[in-house]
C-alpha cells in the first residue's frame, strides 16, 4: 500500500510563503526593526520579537549546509522515494530550511555546494526543493 505523502497545511502566518512557492517565487519575512531575515514564517521576529515583519521576494539561492542519504525511509510515506536526499539549505540571507536535493546523484553532493531552488509540485502543494546551481 502506498501511503499518501504528508503535505503542509498553511496557516494565516505562512500563507504568503506557500502562495509564493505556488507562483514559483521564494518569499521570506524580514524584520523592519533589527533587519533579521526570519524563517520559518512567524508572527514575531525571532531575533528581537518585533511584530513588524515585511514579506520580501528573494532569489532563493544558497548553499548546502548538510545532507544525508536516507537509505531506509524516514517514514512509510516516503517509501517510494528511497533513498531520500534530505538536505538542510542555508539561503544567502542566512536562514536555514529543510529540503530535498534533486537532479543530482548522491555521490555528487557535498557540503558547501551552491544550490538553487526547484519548485516541486507534490500533489496539491508546491515544495521548495533544491538542485546544484
Amino acid at each position, binding site marked *: 500500500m502506498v501511503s499518501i505523502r504528508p503535505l503542509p*497545511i498553511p496557516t494565516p502566518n505562512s500563507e504568503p510563503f506557500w502562495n509564493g512557492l505556488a507562483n514559483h517565487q521564494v518569499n521570506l519575512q524580514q524584520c523592519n526593526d533589527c533587519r533579521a531575515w526570519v524563517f520559518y514564517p512567524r508572527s514575531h521576529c525571532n531575533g528581537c520579537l518585533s511584530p513588524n515583519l515585511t514579506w520580501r521576494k528573494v532569489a532563493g539561492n544558497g548553499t548546502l549546509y*548538510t*545532507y*544525508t542519504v*536516507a537509505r531506509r*525511509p524516514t*517514514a512509510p510515506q516516503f517509501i517510494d522515494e528511497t533513498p531520500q536526499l*534530505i538536505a538542510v539549505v542555508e539561503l544567502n540571507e542566512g536562514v536555514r530550511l529543510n529540503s530535498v536535493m534533486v537532479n543530482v546523484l548522491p555521490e555528487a553532493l557535498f*557540503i558547501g555546494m551552491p544550490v538553487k531552488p526547484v519548485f516541486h509540485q507534490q500533489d496539491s502543494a508546491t515544495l521548495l526543493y533544491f538542485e546544484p546551481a
Partner: protein
Amino acid sequence: MGLKGRAAITGVADYKNVRNYTGKRKFFLEQWAELTQMALADAGLSKHDVDGLCCAAIPESTMFAPATIAEYLGLQVNFAETVDLGGASSVSMIWRAAAAIEMGICEAVVCAAPGLPIPSNPNPLPKDPSRVYGSTSAKWGSPQAEYDVPYGNVAQNAGYALIAQRYAATYGYDERALAKIAVDQRTNAQGNPKAVFFGEPITIDDVLQSKMIADPLHILEIVMPCAGGSAVVVVSERLAKKCQHRPVYVTGFGERLTTRSVTYADDMTVSPVGPAAASAFAMSGKKPKDVDVLEAYDCYTITVLLTIEDSGFCHKGEGITFVKENGLTFNGSFPVNTHGGQLGAGQAAGMAGGMSQPVEGVRQIMGRANGRQVDNCNAALITGTGGIMSEQSAIILEGA
C-alpha cells in the same frame, strides 16, 4: 548558585532490558508501583517516607499524570512534576527532585521511567493521525508539520545523520573512531546481564559492515529499542544517613534548550550539552578531569562524541582523536556508559532509556556495578539528550 549537594540518590531499580518482550504486560501505573516498591526497598525506605514524585507522560492519562500516579500508589506529595524533555527527562527529573529537597519542601522523591509494553486494549482507539511520525509533531500549526514533515525530515535518524555529516565536513571524520564508541560500550554491556546485547560483543568491522541507515550512520551506531524501565529515589541528607547504601549526592546540574528542529541550531555541530555540563561542573566545584565516569545519553555514536567534546573532556573538534586514544570501557582510561549505554544495553521504551544512565552512575559510585565496576569511582557526569539535540541536561553525582 544552585545546589549545595544536600540531596542524594539512595535507591535504584530497573527491569532487565528485553528486545522481544513476552512477559506480563503492565500499565505504566503498575510499573510505577513496582519500580517504586523496588527502589524504596533498595534504599531501605518505606512508602510512608515518599513526599514527592517526578514523572514523564503516562499513556493512561494525557493530563494530570502526577495525581493519577499519586492516587494509584497511595501517596500524598508536596512536590510533583511532569517533565517533558524527551530523552533528557530522567536527568532533569533528578535535579528537580534535588532542588525541591534542598528547598525543604519534600524529603523523598521518586523519579521513575516505565518502559514495558502495556496490555493490549480490547477496544483500541483509532490511531491519532497527528502522531504518525513518532515524536515529530504533525499537528496543524506546528512548525515541524509544515517545514520538516513534508520534506521527509521526520523521526531521529535523519536529524542525527545531518549533524554527523556537518561535523565531518567541519572537523573531519573517522568512521572507525565513531564505531569504536559502539564497540567499547558493547564491551561494557558484557558485564551487564540486564543488557539486550549481553553475550554479544562486536568489533569495529561489524559496525562498519552493518547496514547504512542514513549516511554516515550504520545500524549498529543507533540504539536498539527494547522493553525495560527504571527508577531512582532522591532523598534529603537526613534520610540519606538512614539508608543502607553509600549515598550518591547530586552536587550540580545544568539544563539547556535551544531548538526543536536541529535545522535551526546556531551551529549544528555544537550540542547544548556544553552550557548544561558547564553549569553542573561549576555548581559542584568539579572539573571534567575530576569525574571518574561519564554516563552520556547515547541515542547515536555522534551524540556521545559531541557530549565528550562539548562537556569539556577535550577541545572542540578533537573528539575523534580522544576516542581513539582512550579506552571507553569500564577498565579503560576514560570509562563511558559502563552498563553498555543505550547502544549496548538497549533503549527502553517511553522515557526509560535516559534513566539508565543515572541508574548506572549511582551503581558505580555505590560500588555495586558487579562485573563492570570502575575502580575508586566517586564522581560521575550524567547527561540526558532530548529530541534531536534539542534539550540537554547534566548532573554531577558524588559519593559521600
